[in-house]
């Protein structure tokens, strides 16, 4: 019986090292990665009143309020793409008074208990508010992320959208979870 050559042993060792050093995120998209993808869909499916843009080429501004876990993923998802023939700008806000300047406002769950004043700031400013808190719609938000059985879903508050004069595509509404969705209720399943 003969021994394998030394060079083959060296190669096998190098391959093992390479595999162990790969990041875990590359194997499965994370929560904010999926939310970023959905926000891109929102950008395609919601239209704002014309008065919200100063000129035809004005960018769509995405505002992030609270703990920022999403902006890197958003940048990665959007890259240089144009939505509704406009460039997209991502801004992190720390001051509530500045919030009315954005078109889409992502409110982090870190702000769960301060939603009233935050959303009050952008009320009737035609801002598409997107949250990730169970009380977000009740507080006057338009779209709220809900994770059902490992699938990232969303709820849309029609009245809020109407109030904000936002036009939301039927297709987007088609896959939205009902606003009265209760994760503990037995008759809602991920299939809906």
């Amino acid at each position, binding site marked *: 019986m003969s021994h394998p050559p030394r060079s083959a042993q060296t190669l096998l060792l190098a391959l093992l090292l390479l595999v162990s050093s790969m990041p875990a995120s590359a194997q499965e998209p994370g929560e904010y990665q999926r939310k970023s993808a959905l926000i891109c869909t929102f950008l395609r499916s919601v239209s704002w009143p014309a008065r919200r843009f100063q000129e035809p080429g004005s960018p769509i501004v995405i505002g992030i309020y609270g703990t920022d876990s999403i902006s890197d993923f958003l940048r990665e998802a959007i890259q240089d793409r144009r939505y509704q023939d406009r460039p997209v700008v991502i801004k992190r806000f720390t001051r509530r008074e500045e919030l009315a300047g954005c078109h889409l406002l992502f409110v982090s769950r870190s702000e769960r208990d301060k939603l009233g004043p935050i959303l009050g700031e952008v009320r009737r400013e035609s801002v598409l508010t997107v949250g990730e808190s169970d009380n977000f719609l009740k507080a006057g938000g338009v779209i709220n992320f809900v994770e059902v059985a490992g699938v990232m879903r969303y709820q849309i508050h029609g009245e809020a959208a109407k109030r904000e004069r936002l036009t939301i595509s039927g297709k987007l*509404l088609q896959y939205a979870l009902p606003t009265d969705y209760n994760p503990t209720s037995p008759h809602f399943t991920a299939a809906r």
Partner: protein
Amino acid sequence: MNAFSQIPFRRKLRLVILATCMAALTVASVALFALQFHFYKRDYRRDLAAVAQILAEMSTGAITAGLPESTGDILAALKAKPHVTGAFVRVPDSKTAYGEFGSVPPMLTHTDLPDEFSQFDGELVYVRAITDGPDRVGSLYLVSDYRADSLRLHGLYAGILISVLGTSVLVAALVSVKLERFISEPIHNLAETARGIASRGDYSLRARKSAEDEIGEFADSFNHMLNQIESRDLSLRHEIAERVRAEQELQRVDQQLMDASRHAGMAEVATGVLHNVGNVLNSVNVSATLISEKLGIARTEKLEKAARLLLEHNGSLAEFLTHDPKGKLLPGYLVDAAHHLSNERLGAQEELTLLARNIEHIKEIVSMQQSYASVSGVIEILDLATLIDDAVQMNSGAFDRHGVTLRRDYEPVPPVPVDQHKVLQILINIMRNAKYALDEADPSEKRLTISLRKTDEPAIEIAIADNGVGITEDNLTKVFMHGFTTRKNGHGFGLHSGALAAQQMGGRLTAQSLGLGHGATFTLTLPLPADA
């Protein structure tokens, strides 16, 4: 149908094939068309219903979100279905049309229609409920331009149908042109044969048998028939030739017969002439004998003796006549002789007149017989009593010799137009026959009664009755036949020519007798002209 009967067989066959193909194709095409129409309608509705179902399900989210106007981009997908001309969504208790797509009849948005297919303003409308679980959250209205679509489609189908029919007919025509020959060729051959026979009369032609079917059988029968016709034709030709020959023979015999009859006629004429001339010659002979007898016993001898006495006493005539006893008697004798001679001359003159008349009669007979068939004698209006008397006169010598008593029983009759010589000839003939009959019977009194009277016909009847030997019943009809006679030296011509002569004058000659020993009556009937 009449026009159809004029078409040649081959074209008829083609027409039948084409008509059959056309009928079959038309039925099949119409059935297919109807089926297609049915399926199209069903599928069209199914398709519309399926589209509506998909759209209704997709629209649920927007409606439940309270954003029914957001169904617009869902309904916009209908542009992939050109036959759907309009669509919109309605929510309960609202007359507003959301998410309107295409063109929608204005009134339709305010109209409630049941969840099914309906016709609205000429358009096909399908209404589909939009449900969220068990709840109805809205209605989807789809408007379809079904009519225009189906018209276009069915126009296309009709076009295809017509072109398929046309192509099929064309193909059928081409195929039938190739196939019809199998059927029509044998019939055509038969017809050609029949035409050949009809036009040339050539019965040796035969139809060609090309198949073992009914037409082949027909050809066999036809040929068999031709065989029979040919043999009959042949025998008919023989028969005709035979007839022609027979006809020629008949003509020849006829000619012969005509020649013979002409000869016979000539003979008859000759016999007639001889007979009649013979009869008259008898009278001529009698007259001549009488004259000769009278002259024979004339006293010319004594007259010569007296003349010689006168010559002897030439110088002393006065003395002789006055003194000689013989001379004294001489003047008385001369007177006596002169008287006697004068009487004799008168008698001879009378007899000579009769003779001349008889000779004239002979002349007439000959000239009459010369024109026997066509020319009759001269017609004169005559007194028949005189004519009868003439005939009696001509036979008077014979009657005298045979001691026949003649009785005349004439009624007054008007004069009639007759041929004198024919009547004379007939009467003389009958009288001579009567004389012979009387001689043969030799009764105690030989009686001949001649009567003349007018009948009601109107006609004149001359009846000559005798109490002679009579005629048997058998012979009554034969006596007028040519050549029939009961006498030893008779000719059998007299009565025959008499009857002919009577016929030529429009009258008749008849014979009556009660049999042998009872005498006979011959009656000559001559017609009276209507105005007499």
